[in-house]
């Protein structure tokens, strides 16, 4: 496996210089690996994981999960509709699901009204969308592997031990 991909998979947030140190490569080599991963469409980009509830200056935001039922099409199945929905800026993530509905759509908007407008005016009016069911997120406890309430207490590990 690409050594840089291995480090990315560990989920740390090393700089390219640090990655170079850990993997025993030069910075240029790490950058080359990153480029290759991008070219191969394996590495799509960086994305900070933030807890904006702690930032007073951040505008309030509403997150919702929408279950969408759609009519599959001969030939493309769910793909054409899913890709079309996924292109909206409001949509953070979009998945095809097994079970009682077809697509699971995560949206992120400044207000409840904006989410409502997106669902009623854009999403549900798409030809082939049969129904939507919107759930608003009330509170987040863990985001992409990070615990929001700080996780572990500061370490009490002794500095020197046998």
């Amino acid at each position, binding site marked *: 496996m690409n050594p840089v991909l291995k480090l990315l998979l560990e989920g740390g947030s*090393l700089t390219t210089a*640090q990655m170079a140190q850990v993997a*025993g490569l030069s910075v240029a080599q790490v950058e080359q690996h990153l480029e290759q991963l991008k070219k191969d469409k394996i590495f799509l980009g960086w994305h900070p994981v933030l807890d904006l509830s702690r930032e007073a200056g951040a505008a309030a935001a509403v997150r919702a999960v929408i279950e969408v039922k759609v009519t599959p099409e001969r030939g493309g199945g769910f793909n054409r509709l899913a890709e079309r929905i996924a292109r909206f800026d409001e949509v953070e993530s979009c998945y095809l699901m097994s079970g009682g509905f077809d697509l699971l759509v995560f949206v992120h908007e400044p207000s409840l009204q904006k989410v409502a407008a997106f669902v009623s005016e854009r999403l549900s009016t798409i030809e082939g969308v049969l129904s939507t069911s919107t759930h608003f997120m009330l509170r987040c406890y863990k985001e992409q592997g990070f615990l929001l309430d700080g996780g572990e207490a500061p370490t009490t590990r002794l*500095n*020197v031990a046998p």
Partner: protein
Amino acid sequence: MNPSNFIARHVAALPKSGIRDFFELVAKLKGQDVISLGVGEPDFVTPWHIREAAIYALEKGKTYYTSNLGLIELRRAIAKYVEEHFGVSYRPEDQVIVTVGVSEALDLACRAFINPGDKVMFHQPCYVSYSPSVVLAHGTAIAVPTYAKDNFALTAEALRAAWQPGARMLMLNLPCNPTGGTCSREQLEKIAEFCREKDLLVLTDEIYSELTFEGTHTSIASLPGMAERTIFLHGFSKAFAMTGWRIGYACGPAALIDAMMKVHQYSMLCASIIAQEAALEALLRGWDSVLKMREQYHRRRDLIVRRFNEIGLKCHSPRGSFYAFPDVSVTGLTEKDFATNLLTQQKVAVVPGIAFGENGKGHVRACFATSYEQLIVACDRIEKFVSGVRR
């Protein structure tokens, strides 16, 4: 009246661990930006599913003593684990005892098997407790040196050279704290042969065995004719990141485990039930976490060993454990001065090798159980320090 007169002679004569002095020194720098490579434990917190199992056990009211030997479910899981990973089978009913860390198992074995004056061999540099455990059991400890030229593997030749009449026991710790040294199967076979020839009981502390980065770990207990003369010691501290739980175990011939149980029953009684419940969870479902942690240690090892050698501190690549043991004599400093000056000038804590016995001279122990970011900065600081000294 001098209260010190009440202290038993053999305890009064026992030196305090060299690590203790260094700990005090580091403690004085509290609040400063010290990066510690002086620890002897994982930086990972115990995996959540293991902690959660302990919480669940508490909720279910598991607050009683257990059998002296430990929970039978845990002993069964231990026997299965040891058979699968080390290739030795033990009966959970009478050949396994759960202890308060490997340290207790070591102490039990010393008290159960050493007559006053008996000689016990151990390889050195080594973990700080081996020699004192023997002395506290009124035995005589005989150090067998291991050398950097052998990557600190114990050799049968060194054993033979150090052997004295009256030796009854050999203590092994492979992979070794502080050197990371291990023995190949061939080397172990020669050691085993020597033990059979000299009729030695073997105490093998394999606490770092899961952290073997190259090749497979071989336990001396798995070699032909050895299980009957070997006490296999292991625990959860290192592989499962459970140091503070204080939970370990010993496996061996029933008569010997029974003797250890006698000491255990009159002293510790049993290991904490909460720690036992957590240990059970670790064995049943913790292996994925072990592998993940091992992979990170492996990369950290490669990083620190490469950096030490780049800096000019000769360092062998430890095949196991999370310790690097570079030779610092090139700086012209003793290991103690190196560690002290590095700490005060560059705020990096390493442990002088002398703390692990005479044969640790000229070396320091650097634990790489710390994050990549910290390791990188620590190595840069060490580089700065070394180039300053050499100028």
